[in-house]
């Protein structure tokens, strides 16, 4: 039996008990009886359709700081254009001048050019694009990875189902148990923090045997779910430490040429790590990349960060395709907002949530397709307005999640995947 499926109900029960033990029989976190059952029910109940459930994994590339859509995914001419002239691609649309490698992969992805958001504040915008909800002082909302774990159960018998690379695990499990929280990999070259023991395996085994012996009395006396849950976390961690599963985090096992193809920066290596994790069966991986808050000198910014994104994303799509993983892996590229049409006095662009772009590939998504449009200047949405909620519902749909199903939080408030957004069906082949 999947160990994770044993753990989660336990820790969840601890979570619910604290508040529910005195309340009178109110059911919380609907569907939490057991992830496996929930997965069955979700599969049965959801209406299927084009693309539904095609994705088994999601690689969520989050550009931090507000990626300029005009210089990347939605190039313009005239005064809006900026320092780099648009370039042709393999498909019948253009990309920003820095996206040379991505242009060659244009037959593999779709772009939404009609995204719009209500906030121009970084943290608030990132929160919305990850969770679909506005940030509140009274509740935390889950990301898609946590929603997926709720509906589909764990994706791996030992490793977590939800990983985030190059960032801290905030905006993760939301109101779900902390076992749904993304496992943070702060530096892809280093891998999982504290995974290595400071002493030789033989010494560690002695320690673990002694631990088992000396703690036995306490464990016998207190057979509560909290104590059992900790014991299981220890068992699981010890098995991870000694298992080959941790190899998923070892980038050194990748050929040097491939590492260079992705780009040796943290983002390139993060994308490569994401692919390794997908191969290992980890469902949801977010890779973050900063540097996009280009208020000054956007020309230099693009040379550095635009090029890094271009190289890594193109390599990722090509690599996934070659390995036959692209059909079952949804890759999305997004940012908290775009940047304005006007080049400011410092040669940069300022925050622009009114219209921006996202990219989707794999997981049943069409190749070479543009959805919606911004107006001529890149100022506002011209066609097929799409919200962060629609975007997240699309991801949920691709993963086969029941996006309409209402889940009650422990505080008894109703929530859905992507806050009642509508999946963009035109994106699916």
């Amino acid at each position: 039996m999947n160990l994770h499926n044993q753990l989660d109900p336990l820790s969840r029960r601890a979570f619910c008990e604290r508040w529910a033990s005195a309340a009178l029989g109110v059911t919380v976190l609907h569907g939490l009886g057991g992830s496996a059952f929930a997965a069955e029910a979700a599969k049965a109940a959801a209406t299927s359709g084009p693309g539904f459930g095609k994705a088994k994994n999601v690689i969520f590339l989050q550009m931090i700081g507000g990626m300029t859509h005009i210089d990347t995914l939605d190039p313009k001419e005239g005064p809006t254009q900026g320092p780099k002239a648009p370039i042709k691609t393999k498909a019948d649309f253009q990309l920003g001048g820095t996206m040379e490698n991505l242009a060659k992969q244009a037959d593999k992805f779709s772009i939404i050019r009609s995204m719009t958001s209500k906030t121009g504040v970084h943290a608030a915008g990132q929160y919305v694009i990850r969770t679909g909800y506005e940030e509140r002082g009274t509740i935390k909302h889950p990301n898609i990875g946590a929603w997926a774990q709720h509906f589909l159960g764990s994706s791996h018998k030992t490793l977590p189902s939800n990983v985030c690379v190059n960032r801290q695990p905030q905006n993760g499990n939301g109101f779900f148990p902390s076992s749904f929280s993304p496992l943070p990999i702060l530096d892809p070259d280093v891998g999982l923090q504290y995974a290595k023991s400071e002493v030789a395996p033989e010494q560690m085994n002695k320690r673990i045997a002694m631990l088992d012996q000396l703690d036995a009395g306490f464990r016998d006396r207190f057979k509560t779910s909290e104590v059992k849950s900790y014991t299981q976390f220890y068992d699981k961690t010890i098995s991870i430490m000694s298992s080959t599963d941790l190899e998923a985090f070892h980038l050194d096992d990748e050929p040097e040429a491939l590492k260079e193809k992705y780009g040796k920066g943290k983002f390139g290596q993060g994308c490569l790590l994401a692919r390794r994790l997908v191969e290992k069966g980890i469902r949801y991986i977010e890779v973050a990349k900063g540097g996009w808050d280009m208020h000054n000198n956007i020309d230099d910014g693009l040379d550095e960060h635009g090029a890094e994104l271009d190289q890594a994303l193109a390599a990722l799509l090509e690599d996934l395709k070659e390995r036959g993983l692209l059909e079952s892996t949804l890759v999305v590229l997004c940012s908290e907002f775009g940047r304005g049409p006007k080049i400011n006095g410092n040669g940069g662009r300022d925050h622009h949530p009114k219209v921006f772009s996202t990219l989707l590939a794999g997981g049943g998504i069409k190749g070479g397709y543009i959805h919606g449009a911004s107006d001529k200047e890149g100022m506002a949405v011209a066609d097929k307005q799409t919200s962060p909620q629609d975007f997240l519902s699309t991801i949920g749909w691709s993963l086969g999640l029941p996006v309409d199903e209402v889940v009650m939080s422990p505080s008894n408030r109703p929530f859905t995947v992507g806050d009642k957004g509508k999946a963009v069906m035109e994106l699916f082949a």
Partner: protein
Amino acid sequence: MKTRFCLPLACALLVTGLQADNEVYRTWTDSQGRKLEATFRGIENGNVFLQIRNGYVYRLSLDKLSAADQQAAKTLKPEGLGIPSDPNLAQAAAQIDMLVEAGLKKAEQKPNPLASDEQFVRRVFLDLAGRIPTREEALEFINDTSLSKRAKVIDRLLESEGYRSHLFNYFADMLRMADVAQKARFYTYQDWLKKQIGENVPWNKLVYSMMTADGKLLENGATGYLLRDAGMRLDNLSLTLSTFIGANVSCAQCHDHPFADWTQRQFFEMAAFFGATETYGAKGNAGAGMQGMRKVLASLGDKKLQQQAKNLLRVNALAVEDSSTNDLKLPDDYKYPDAKPGDLVTPKLITWSDDKTKKAYQGVQTTKHDEQLREQFAKWMTSPDNPRFAMTIANRMWKHMFGIGVKEPVADLDDPNASSNPALLHHLANEMVRLKFDLKQFLRVLCNTDTYQREATSHELADNSAYLFPGPILRRMTAEQAWDSCATLVVGADVDKFKGHRGETYAKAMSIDLSGEASPDVIKGQIENAIASMRQFGGKAAGTPKNKKKRMMNQGGEEDLTLAPPVRDGMVLARASELPQPEKDQHFLRMFGQSDRQIADSESEEGSIPQVLMLMNGEAQRVIGQNDSLVVKTASAQKTPEQQVESLYLSFFSRKPKPDELASATAGLSNGMTMRDLTWVLFNTREFIFVE
């Protein structure tokens, strides 16, 4: 002491008719022939302690008793948990026990056995002082033969530095205290709260201060509560109502509450009490001073300097001010027929259906002066007659000690009768009022109850059935308790010495006089000075500036721990309350569940794989097991391996090892395991991280 046969407490209404029935009563007679039916609690220093059925404990001089009873007092085995520090306290504790026992009896449950000294001392240190006792502190208690030792250790811990630190941690989670908010540092707010706790300011006064605070954050830390959510007064109010009076209104911020009685209209009527409160940029500062500032700003050539100066101004502009008109309007999407979107809202207090007396509402009349709206609200909310204010904090403090509230969740007291023991909940609220919101006194009562001093419940709590408190529940340590306990293992009780006091330093560094008196040159000088001192707060400010490290030796060459805490392997070994709030994500505290201070009451007690990896392989286990760690030094100084193991057990668990544990551990030591291995093992046990 004069013998009185009357109820000394006014507040015993609820427990009339209830009697503790698990004790042995006998009739005592004094030398004048007066009789008293009481249970024998013990004899100390020539005084006999007798507890009557309502819980009151008489202290009688032995020689005042009849000869037969003098003999009895010398031979009888004392009942209960030793002798309390004062008779009223004993009675207050006994009344709680009776209510708990009545609840248990009704459900045909039995209370847990009384906890051993070892269990008790570790628990009471963790619950009151926020850390485990050192080996010496544990031994001192265990070896103390006096009958009043439990009461005494409670009294001592309530006066300790750890008490202030631990209660601060609780409120910091509840109030979402973060170093950084609104792009400023909220150190003065933290220092203010610590000072209130240190001075044991009554809870109603403390909350009243937060609700009504005026002025700059830099000058008045109490403004931090409203400024934490500057510009978001609806969110702030929602939290105020749920945190302090358990009104579960968060839904009503956007629409009528689907399950409870609250309407969106009511929510806005409450919010209107803050409709004339300005938290978004200090308006009063828009005068001559601010204009002078702008000129000075423009004259700063360097862009970076200009930016720093702007930040400085923003920090100085963070203030709470009252305007003369309430401008709160209904939201644009207001959809109910009783009013239109955008209508101005008249302030109106909410009422609960079970609140028959409405005493709290008397004397609160809607003023014509909008600038006094906040005071009206605060007066009503913190009134002893408010039907929820005392109950909410009483229930929270109960949870703080027992691990679970009488009513859960603690932020929803809309229906007190849905609690596990409504009579107990009402009694605790009355006690809070009787004790005039003195939290220390309230906690003293709770800790002196038999209920608190029983063994922790060892069986699984049944789903959805009320917990009736046969004893405290088994709890995992909070992140702060675990961290402070680790630091205690390494440096001992000295860990309590260091205090950050960052508020004062920060305010001094950042304050600029915007009164308009100062000339542009003077202002410019102020800005430059402030920018120079801003640097120490620039990055993620640690508990102590690193450059102070050299100065932390005093003349004797010893570390002066009041100035700077010890640092081992990059870990600053100060109490969690003196470290950054919250700590950075990869710190032990956060990995162990410290709240990120974004959501109220969101400290987590759950495990995770990264957390267990950290416990097994991270810095904490290393620093605890190193030779310069106190726990290792103390154990190494013992002569035999048996004594060494015993020393470690006392340090980690406040108890001696059982024979089989002693045998296993000493066998390990002779089989190639080191002291460091053993500290690793004990640190990674469930027994270490759980509180019995």
